[in-house]
C-alpha cells in the first residue's frame, strides 16, 4: 500500500520539521494575523443596505436608485399616533412634535405631517368624495321643505315637527304605496334627528359643551379646518407623521431613530395616556439590526464560555483548550484579511460568516486532539511519535471533511444573489484557511507548549470501543434509521418556508408592534410600491388602472391633492346652490320653544319609532340600531321636558335653541361660501399646490411619482407576490419596498434551494471520487440523511418553519453531517483495530464534542428575542444533535452490517493526502520518525 506508506513518511517528516520550525511557524502565523487585522481595519467596509444583497447590475436596483435620486428617499420613519375619540389631542401632539423636530434640521431634514388647508379652501367642496358630495346635494334637495319650513319658523319645535311629518309621510307611503317604488320605500335617515336628540338630552341635563349635531348632515371636514390637513388613516384610527432622517448607513439611522424616540417621549409626556410609536422602513431595519446585534453579543459570550468549558471538560486540559482557541483566532484573523483582499466588504448576510465558519472548523482541531489523547494513552504524555501518529491517522478524515465543507459552500458562490454569493465565497476560502491553520498551528503550538519527549509508539494504538457497545443487533438500529428518514421525508411536506420578514423580528420591538397595529387595525402599511410616469395623462391612466386592482388599497400621487373629477362634481354644486342661496337662517330663534309642545311632538315621533323598532326584521342593522336609539333618547328626554320634574326645562331648552340656530346659521353660511368659491374660482392646478408637496411627487425632470399602497398584508409572501404581479401588470418598471422585498425573498429562497441541491450533488460526487466506491459514498452520507430526517421530524413536531435566518445555517448541519460521516468512515477504513470495534471511543468523543460545541455555540442564540435568531439557534441545536445521534448510532450499525460483507478492508483514496504530501515534502528514506534526531 504505497499511499499508506507515503502518508506515514510524509507525516513523520512534517512532524520532524515542526520540531525545528514550530516557533517560526507560530511567529509567522501571528505576524500574518497582525497584518491581516491591520489590513482589515483599514480596508474592510460593512454594507447594511438590503439593496446591496441583490446583484448591483440588476435593473431593479438601478431603477430604485434613480427613483430615490429623482424624488428623494423620503419618509423612512413614521410616527404613529393612536387617535382617541377626539382628533384634537393627536393633532396637538403632531404640532408639538413638529416644533421639537424643527430644532434638529440636520438630523431630520424633512418632516411631513400636514398640508395647510387654507391653500385648498376655495375648492373645499370639490375635494369631497363623489359619493359624499352627492349625499350632501341629496340632503339639501331632499330636505328642502324641512329647511324652508325651519327658515320660516326658526325654532327647535319646528325642526322636530317637520321631522315628524317626514317620518309620518314615509311610514304611510311605505305602507300604502311602497309597492310603486322600484327598490321599495325606505325610512328617512334619522342621523340628524338622533344627533340633535343627543345634544338636546345633554342640554336638558345641563351638560356642556354644545357639540354641533350638523356633522351628520354637512361633511364634518368643511366645518372646522383646525383639524384638517393632517394625515389620518382611512378609518381615522391613526395619525401618521412622516420623518426623513439624515441619509446614512445603519449606524446613522439607528442614532436618528433613537433621537426621534427620545423626542417623541418628551412630547408625549405632555399628553398623558396618548399612545405613540415610531415605525417605518428605516425604523424596522434599524431595530432589527440593533436588537439582533445586542442579542447576538450576549449569545456570543455565552457561547464562548460554554464552548471553552466543553473543551476543557472533554480534553481535560486548559492548555490544549487555549491552543485550540489561539488556532481559531489566528485562522479567523487570516480569514478576515482574505475577505478584505478578495471581497473588500461584508454585507448583511456575510456578517455572520465568522460564527458559521468557526462552528465547523473548530471540529478539525477537536478530532485531532481527541485522537492525540487516544494515542497518548492513560499517561497523557506528549511525544513526537504520538503527535505524528495522531496527525497521520486523522489527516485524511480532517482534510476530506474540510473539502466536503468547502464543496458544500462553493455552489453558493455561483448564485445570482449577490449577498449569498459573497457569503459562499468567503466561507469556501475561509474553511480552506482554517484547515491550513489547524494543520499547521495546532501541532506547532502543542510542540512549543508541551514537553514532547521521544518514546516508542505503535501506530495506530489500540482503541477502546465507544461505550463498549457490542452492536449485536445492528439491523434494528438500521431499520430505525430508515424509519426516521421516512418520517423526515413525510415531514418535509409539512414544514413550511416562512418568508414573512416581520416574523423574524422581535415581536415586542416598537417598530414591529406599531407596524402590526397599522396593518391589523387600519390595513395600512408603511411600505408602498413606486411608479414613475413621464406625463400627466399617463399618470391619470395608470392611477385609474391601479385603483381598479383588488390588491391596491389606495394610490397617492400629485393627483391625490387635486380634486378628482371636478367636472362631474360641478353640476351637483350648480344644482344645490340656488336652494342654499334662497334659504336664510337667522342666528336666533323666532321665539323660545315650549317644552310641552315639544314633548307632544316627540311623543308622536316616539310612537312611530316604537312601532317601527318592533317591526324591523327586514331592515338593515344600522337602521334598526338608529331607530332603537331614537326611541331610547326620546324616552330619556320626555321626563326632562316636564317642568314639574325639571324646573329648568324651559331655560335649558331656550339655551339649546339659541345654540342650535346659531350653529345652523354658521354651517349654512359656510356651505354657501364654499359653494360659491368652488363655482367661481379658477380650476385647481398643480401650480396651486404647496412646494413641499410638488417636490415629493414631481421630479426636477418633470416625471411624476405614484405611491401604491397594498390592500393586504404584503409581509406574507402570497399577497406580496400578487401585489407585485399586479403592479408590474401596470408598469413593468415598478419599484419600491414591496418589489424589492419580493425580489429579495424569491432570489434568496431560490438561491438557497439551488445551492443546497448543488452542494449535495457535488459532495456525493466528491465522496464517490475520494472513496472510489459508490457504496462508501452512500455510507458517508448516512449521518446527513438520517440526521436531516430527524431534524425535519422535530421541526414538524415543534412547528418550527424554515425562514430566511435559520435556512442560512442549514449548510452548517449539512457540513457537520458529512464531516462526521467522513471522520468515522475514514478511520473505519484505515484501521483494522477500528473495524473490529466499529466505533472507537476517541472518534466518537471527537464527533460528540464537535456536535456539542455547535449545539452550545448556536443554541445560545435562543436567548434572543429576535425570532429569526431564536429559530436559528433552535434549528442549529436540533440539527446538530440529530446529526450526532445518527453518526453515533445509525452509521456504526450500518458499518457493522456492511462489515459482514467485506473480506478485506481497503483504503486507497483517489486523492490521497499521502500522495500530495509525499510530493510536497521530499521524503528521505533514511530519515527517522522521531523529532529528536
Amino acid at each position, binding site marked *: 500500500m504505497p499511499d499508506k506508506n507515503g502518508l506515514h513518511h510524509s507525516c513523520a517528516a512534517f512532524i520532524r520539521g515542526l520540531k525545528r520550525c514550530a516557533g517560526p511557524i507560530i511567529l509567522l502565523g501571528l505576524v500574518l494575523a497582525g497584518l491581516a487585522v491591520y489590513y482589515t481595519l483599514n480596508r474592510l467596509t460593512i454594507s447594511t443596505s438590503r439593496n446591496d444583497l441583490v446583484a448591483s447590475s440588476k435593473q431593479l436596483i438601478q431603477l430604485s436608485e434613480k427613483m430615490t435620486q429623482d424624488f428623494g428617499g423620503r419618509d423612512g420613519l413614521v410616527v404613529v399616533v393612536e387617535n382617541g375619540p377626539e382628533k384634537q389631542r393627536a393633532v396637538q401632539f403632531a404640532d408639538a412634535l413638529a416644533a421639537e423636530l424643527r430644532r434638529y434640521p440636520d438630523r431630520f431634514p424633512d418632516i411631513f405631517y400636514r398640508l395647510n388647508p387654507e391653500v385648498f379652501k376655495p375648492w373645499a367642496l370639490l375635494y369631497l368624495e363623489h359619493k359624499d358630495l352627492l349625499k350632501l346635494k341629496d340632503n339639501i334637495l331632499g330636505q328642502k321643505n324641512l329647511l324652508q319650513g325651519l327658515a320660516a319658523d326658526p325654532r327647535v319645535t319646528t325642526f322636530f315637527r317637520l321631522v315628524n*311629518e317626514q317620518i*309620518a309621510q314615509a311610514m304611510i307611503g311605505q305602507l*300604502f304605496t311602497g*309597492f310603486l317604488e322600484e327598490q321599495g320605500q325606505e325610512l328617512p335617515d334619522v342621523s340628524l334627528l338622533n344627533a340633535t336628540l343627543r345634544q338636546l338630552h345633554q342640554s336638558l341635563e345641563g351638560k356642556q359643551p354644545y357639540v354641533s349635531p350638523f356633522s351628520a348632515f354637512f361633511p364634518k371636514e368643511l366645518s372646522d379646518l383646525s383639524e384638517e390637513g393632517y394625515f389620518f388613516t382611512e378609518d381615522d384610527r391613526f395619525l401618521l407623521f412622516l420623518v426623513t432622517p439624515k441619509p446614512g448607513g445603519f449606524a446613522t439611522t439607528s442614532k436618528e431613530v433613537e433621537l426621534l424616540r427620545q423626542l417623541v417621549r418628551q412630547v408625549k409626556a405632555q399628553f398623558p395616556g396618548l399612545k405613540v410609536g415610531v415605525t417605518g422602513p428605516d425604523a424596522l431595519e434599524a431595530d432589527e439590526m440593533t436588537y439582533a446585534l445586542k442579542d447576538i453579543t450576549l449569545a456570543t459570550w455565552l457561547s464562548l464560555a460554554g464552548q471553552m468549558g466543553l473543551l476543557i471538560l472533554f480534553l481535560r486540559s486548559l492548555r490544549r483548550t487555549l491552543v485550540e482557541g489561539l488556532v481559531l483566532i489566528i485562522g479567523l484573523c487570516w480569514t478576515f484579511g482574505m475577505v478584505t483582499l478578495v471581497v473588500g466588504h461584508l454585507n448583511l448576510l456575510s456578517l455572520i460568516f465568522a460564527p458559521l465558519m468557526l462552528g465547523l472548523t473548530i471540529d478539525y482541531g477537536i478530532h485531532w486532539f481527541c485522537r492525540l489523547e487516544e494515542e497518548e494513552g492513560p499517561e497523557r504524555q506528549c511525544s513526537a511519535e504520538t503527535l505524528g501518529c495522531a496527525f497521520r491517522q486523522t489527516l485524511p478524515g480532517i482534510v476530506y471533511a474540510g473539502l466536503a465543507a468547502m464543496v458544500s459552500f462553493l455552489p453558493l458562490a455561483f448564485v445570482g444573489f449577490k449577498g449569498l454569493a459573497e457569503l459562499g465565497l468567503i466561507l469556501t476560502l475561509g474553511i480552506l484557511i482554517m484547515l491550513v491553520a489547524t494543520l499547521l498551528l495546532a501541532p506547532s503550538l502543542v510542540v512549543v507548549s508541551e514537553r514532547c519527549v521521544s518514546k516508542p509508539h505503535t501506530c495506530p494504538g489500540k482503541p477502546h470501543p465507544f461505550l463498549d457497545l457490542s452492536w449485536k443487533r445492528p439491523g434494528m438500529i438500521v431499520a430505525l434509521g430508515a424509519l426516521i428518514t421516512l418520517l423526515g421525508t413525510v415531514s418535509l411536506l409539512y414544514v413550511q418556508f416562512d418568508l414573512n420578514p416581520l416574523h423574524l423580528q422581535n415581536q415586542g420591538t416598537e417598530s414591529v408592534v406599531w407596524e402590526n397595529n397599522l396593518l391589523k387595525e387600519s390595513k395600512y402599511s408603511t411600505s408602498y410600491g413606486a411608479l414613475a410616469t413621464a406625463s400627466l395623462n399617463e399618470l391619470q391612466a395608470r392611477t385609474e388602472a391601479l385603483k381598479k386592482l383588488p390588491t391596491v388599497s389606495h394610490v397617492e400621487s400629485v393627483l391625490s391633492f387635486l380634486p378628482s373629477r371636478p367636472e362631474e362634481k360641478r353640476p351637483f354644486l350648480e344644482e344645490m346652490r340656488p336652494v342654499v342661496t334662497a334659504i336664510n337662517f337667522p342666528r336666533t330663534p323666532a321665539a323660545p320653544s315650549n317644552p310641552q309642545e315639544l314633548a*307632544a311632538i316627540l311623543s308622536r315621533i316616539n310612537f312611530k319609532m*316604537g312601532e317601527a323598532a*318592533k317591526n324591523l326584521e327586514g331592515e338593515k342593522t344600522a337602521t334598526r340600531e338608529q331607530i332603537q336609539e331614537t326611541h331610547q333618547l326620546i324616552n330619556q328626554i*320626555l321626563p326632562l321636558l316636564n317642568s314639574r320634574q325639571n324646573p329648568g326645562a324651559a331655560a335649558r331648552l331656550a339655551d339649546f335653541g339659541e345654540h342650535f340656530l346659531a350653529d345652523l346659521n354658521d354651517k349654512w353660511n359656510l356651505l354657501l361660501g364654499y359653494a360659491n368659491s368652488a363655482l367661481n374660482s379658477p380650476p385647481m392646478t398643480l401650480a396651486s399646490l404647496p412646494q413641499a408637496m410638488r417636490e415629493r411627487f414631481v421630479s426636477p425632470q418633470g416625471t411624476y411619482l405614484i405611491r401604491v399602497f397594498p390592500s393586504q398584508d404584503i409581509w406574507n409572501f402570497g399577497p406580496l407576490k400578487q401585489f407585485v404581479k399586479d403592479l408590474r401588470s401596470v408598469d413593468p418598471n415598478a419599484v419600491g419596498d414591496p418589489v424589492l422585498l419580493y425580489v429579495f425573498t424569491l432570489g434568496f429562497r431560490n438561491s438557497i434551494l439551488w445551492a443546497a441541491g448543488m452542494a449535495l450533488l457535488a459532495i456525493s460526487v466528491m465522496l464517490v471520487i475520494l472513496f472510489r466506491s459508490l457504496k462508501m459514498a452512500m455510507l458517508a452520507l448516512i449521518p446527513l440523511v438520517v440526521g436531516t430526517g430527524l431534524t425535519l421530524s422535530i421541526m414538524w413536531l415543534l412547528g418550527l418553519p424554515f425562514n430566511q435566518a435559520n435556512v442560512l445555517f442549514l449548510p452548517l448541519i449539512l457540513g457537520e453531517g458529512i464531516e462526521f460521516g467522513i471522520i468515522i468512515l475514514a478511520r473505519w477504513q484505515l484501521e483494522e483495530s477500528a473495524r473490529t470495534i466499529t466505533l472507537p471511543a476517541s472518534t466518537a468523543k471527537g464527533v460528540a464534542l464537535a456536535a456539542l460545541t455547535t449545539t452550545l455555540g448556536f443554541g445560545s442564540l435562543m436567548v434572543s428575542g429576535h425570532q429569526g435568531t431564536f429559530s436559528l439557534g433552535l434549528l442549529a441545536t436540533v440539527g446538530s444533535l440529530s446529526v450526532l445521534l445518527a453518526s453515533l448510532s445509525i452509521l456504526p450499525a450500518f458499518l457493522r452490517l456492511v462489515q459482514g460483507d467485506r473480506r478485506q478492508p481497503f483504503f486507497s483514496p483517489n486523492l490521497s493526502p499521502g500522495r500530495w504530501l509525499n510530493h510536497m515534502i521530499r521524503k528521505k528514506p533514511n530519515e527517522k520518525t522521531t523529532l529528536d534526531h
Partner: protein
Amino acid sequence: MRKPLSIISWSLAALWLLAAPALAQTPKDYVRGILGQAMGVQNNPSLTDAARRPLIHQIIEKNFDFNLMARDSLGPAYGNLNSGQRQEFTNAFSYLFQDSYTRLVLNFLKRENVEYQRESQEGGKARVDTAIVRTNESIPVTYFMHSTPQGWILYDVMVDGVSILQNYRNEFARVIKTKSFSYLLERMRTQVKAVR
C-alpha cells in the same frame, strides 16, 4: 200581485230597521264601534295572528267606500278610463287598501287607550279626531266619513297629519306623470298577486 210586493216592502222595512241603529249613530259612535270591533279581534286571546287577519279585513271591507276612494285617488285621470279599466282599477285599489290597512291595524292597534276628541259634521260629511295614547307616546288619527242611506261610511283616515287618500293621490299622479296609467295598473296587479 200585492202579496209579493208586500213581502218586498216588509223585507226592505226589516233591513231599514236593522240599519237604523247605524244611521242613528253619531260619527264618534260609529268610529268607536269600528275601533271596538277591531280591538275585540286584536285582543281576543283565542285567535292567532293568522286568524285575526281575515276578521280585520272584513271590518275594513264593510266600513270604507272604495268606489269613492278609488275615484278620488286617481283624480282627473279617472275620467279618461273606460268602464272596464275603472272596474279593474277599483277592484285592485280596494284589495290593496284593505291589505295595507289590515297591516296598519294589526301592527298599531292593540289594547289601546283611545281618546275620542273633536267631532264635526258638514254637508253630509263628518270628521272625528282621536288619539292613541300610551306612556311617552301618542299619535293623532282622524277619521273622515260621509253619510249614505245605509249610514256613515269612511272614505279617508289621516294618521299624524298624513292623509292616506292624499298619499294615494300624490303617488298615483307621480307614477302616471312619469310612466303611465297602464304601468300603474300593472304594478297594482303585480302587488295584488303578491299579497293574495
